């Protein structure tokens, strides 16, 4: 079993709030619907460029869409 990526995301919530289908968002950011599904399900880590495109499609920052756990142990 392949472990899901540590990069979490809220694409689905943002997409539903924006009233976009997977196909529409995929077309906007220039990927196939299957790739967008894989990203939403954390089965594929998007490239930085694609992550920016997704965030920009919703008009928000990268941090609003993508998260990464703090593995350094330092509290912020």
């Amino acid at each position: 079993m392949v472990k899901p990526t540590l990069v979490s995301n809220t694409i689905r919530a943002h997409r539903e709030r924006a009233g976009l289908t997977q196909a529409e968002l995929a077309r906007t950011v220039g990927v196939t619907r299957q790739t967008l599904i894989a990203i939403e399900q954390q089965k594929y880590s998007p490239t930085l460029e694609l992550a920016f495109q997704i965030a920009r499609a919703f008009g928000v920052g990268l941090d609003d869409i993508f998260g990464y756990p703090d593995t350094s142990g330092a509290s912020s």
Partner: protein
Amino acid sequence: MVYEERNAWAGLIVSPIVMVVYVVLVLQQAAGGPLTGVDWFPLMLWVIGGGIVATIILSVGWGIIAGMKDPDGVGRSDIRDRDISRMGGRVEQGFVVIAGLGVIALCAVGADVFWIANTMFAGFAVSALVGGIARVIAYRRGLV
């Protein structure tokens, strides 16, 4: 299923068939005699050519059927396809290198050209098969 995944499946379906057909033809031609007496070169060329044609026919036919259901994504590929293709290529490379080392070892011991050529052929066939499996797993289970 995206275009590149269909191609990966087509290769995965065709390559084991090609391997089996080749082995059967070689054994048939040997007819119980020594394998080194088999005229393997035309057989190998025919099997490779047949495999390429079968893969193309399968992926084109599959693409036409898939295009009827989802005309949008028939021939499209994207960054994930390229990432998966690169990963599959790395897996394949390992087996080609092993076969190459086998060929060097066989040359060093003066093995018959039949074994040298077929070791390389087996390396290509196994690398295509394992690379195809890796690609399909990445498409189905994810690539992180």
